[in-house]
């Protein structure tokens, strides 16, 4: 409910601003804010009290909502009920959800074909039934109201038939100039099928360019493997077998498609029997990781903080 204050010109010596529009005192921007939150424009300086009064009253009366009669809601049976399906009894399926392009092995609990819960597959060697927050949250994506229900063109829904027709028209244009100006935006994927199709498309239109959109991604690790091995590689830590781990600004126990396996291996390496020493971790990091963070610095036996880009050699006192 914060109103962007009109800039006080007297205080221009020390002006605090939250956006360029505010700094330039843009009238159009202020109008937009007022239109976005019309209630905020009406609120006087003492409106807070009135607001609290109304909220208090509605909170006090909220209990009455429990006294209303139970509504008559719709009941939608199957058209053709699957064999052995009992309404209200869950079924469990072994399946996979992708995280950053990598398949995560899960068991899905479903009611009448609708998944409600995902858990790690206990029979899968990588997770052994363990799960992580991303796996737990993945089921919500299925019911996201913003989830695409079909193809769109300029923001308007269209049909796959029209998409196919439009692409076949465009294909003719691309053929003339080897796909000059053709850009493809994809998410992270580890699918060999999709990779093969992309390769085939690239052969057909050599000047085409593919862009990868990753929310977090592994760009830094790929850069380091490129420097060390000459090509970008996936890192698979064998923490269970390691005796000493040295980490340079790398949150190797942090979130990522391998986080469950890394956490399991790390835990078992800390729990090793007496004939083998416990794993030692040395960390050099530019930002000290918080004690409640799961990975790196806080777990380290030795830690050294330094500036980013000048990662100090790990100390072993």
């Amino acid at each position, binding site marked *: 409910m914060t109103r962007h204050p009109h800039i006080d010109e007297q205080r221009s010596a020390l002006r605090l601003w939250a956006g360029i529009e505010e700094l330039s005192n843009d009238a159009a921007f202020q109008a937009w804010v007022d239109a976005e939150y019309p209630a905020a424009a009406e609120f006087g300086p003492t409106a807070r009290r009135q607001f609290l009064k109304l909220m208090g009253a509605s909170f006090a009366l909220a209990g009455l909502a429990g006294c209303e009669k*139970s509504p008559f809601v719709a009941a939608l049976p199957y*058209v*053709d009920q699957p064999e052995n399906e*009992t309404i209200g009894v869950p079924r469990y399926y072994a399946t996979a959800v992708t995280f950053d392009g990598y398949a995560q092995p899960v068991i899905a609990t479903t009611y009448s074909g609708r998944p409600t819960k995902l858990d790690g597959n206990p029979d899968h060697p990588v997770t052994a039934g363990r799960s992580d927050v991303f796996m737990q949250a993945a089921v919500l994506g299925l019911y996201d109201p913003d989830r695409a229900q079909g193809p769109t063109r300029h923001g308007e829904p269209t049909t796959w038939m029209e998409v196919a027709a439009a692409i076949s028209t465009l294909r003719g244009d691309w053929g003339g100039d080897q796909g000059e100006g053709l850009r493809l935006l994809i998410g992270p994927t580890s699918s060999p099928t999709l990779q093969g199709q992309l390769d085939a498309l690239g052969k057909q239109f050599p000047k085409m360019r593919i862009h990868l959109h990753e929310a977090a991604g592994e760009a830094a690790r790929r850069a380091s493997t490129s420097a060390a091995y000459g090509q970008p590689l996936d890192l698979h830590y064998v923490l269970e077998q390691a005796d000493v781990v040295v980490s340079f600004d790398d949150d190797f126990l942090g979130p990522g498609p391998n986080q469950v396996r890394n956490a399991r291996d790390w835990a078992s390496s800390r729990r090793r029997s007496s004939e083998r020493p416990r794993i030692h971790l040395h960390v050099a990091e530019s930002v000290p990781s918080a004690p409640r963070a799961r990975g790196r610095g806080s777990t380290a036996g030795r830690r050294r903080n330094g500036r980013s880009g000048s990662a100090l050699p790990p100390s072993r006192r």
Partner: protein
Amino acid sequence: MAQIFSPAADTWMRLFLVGSLAIVAGGTVGVAGFARSAYITSTDFRPAQPVPFSHRHHAGELGIDCRYCHSGVEAGPQAGLPPTETCMTCHSQIWTNASMLEPVRQSLVQNQPIEWTRVAKLPDYVFFRHDIHIAKGVGCVSCHGRIDEMALTYRAKAFTMDFCLDCHRDPTPNLRPKDHITDMAWKPPGEARKEGEAIAAHEGIRFGELTHCYVCHR
């Protein structure tokens, strides 16, 4: 010194006490009565359905067993509504052109469910399973009333906590043999309590535990 209280003050005081007591008691009775009224418990309401399905005709006159359509009742928590295919077992052969059944045919053709309005519904905070009630010998009629006499289906019993607890406190008179679970008109041949005691002993019903909070609220 003038008197503070007039001679009628005692009378006014008594009237006030009796009056306020009457308002409080009357209000309590009124609220409790309203909560149990047919209006609030929806026992007087026959919701409109896309097809005016008559249980009186199908279950009463034709004698189709409840479980033919509500097939999940013995195996799962919900009795379930019949899929369109179940309607079409008969109605692909009889009344195939009845205009009343157009929504059923459309459902099959378009592969879209029939949008019934649910009649028997418990609140979400109640844990309820049909299968255990059937397995222990509670008949359909005990909660759903004489469905076989209903043209349009309605809620025969108010699904209040009272209603559930009455039986959970003393289930014996409401138990019946397995082969009469769906029989709407069944009456115990002898004394209901004696019959029920034999069934309760056979089914191992744990009296007293049925009224624990967590039995219904989990």
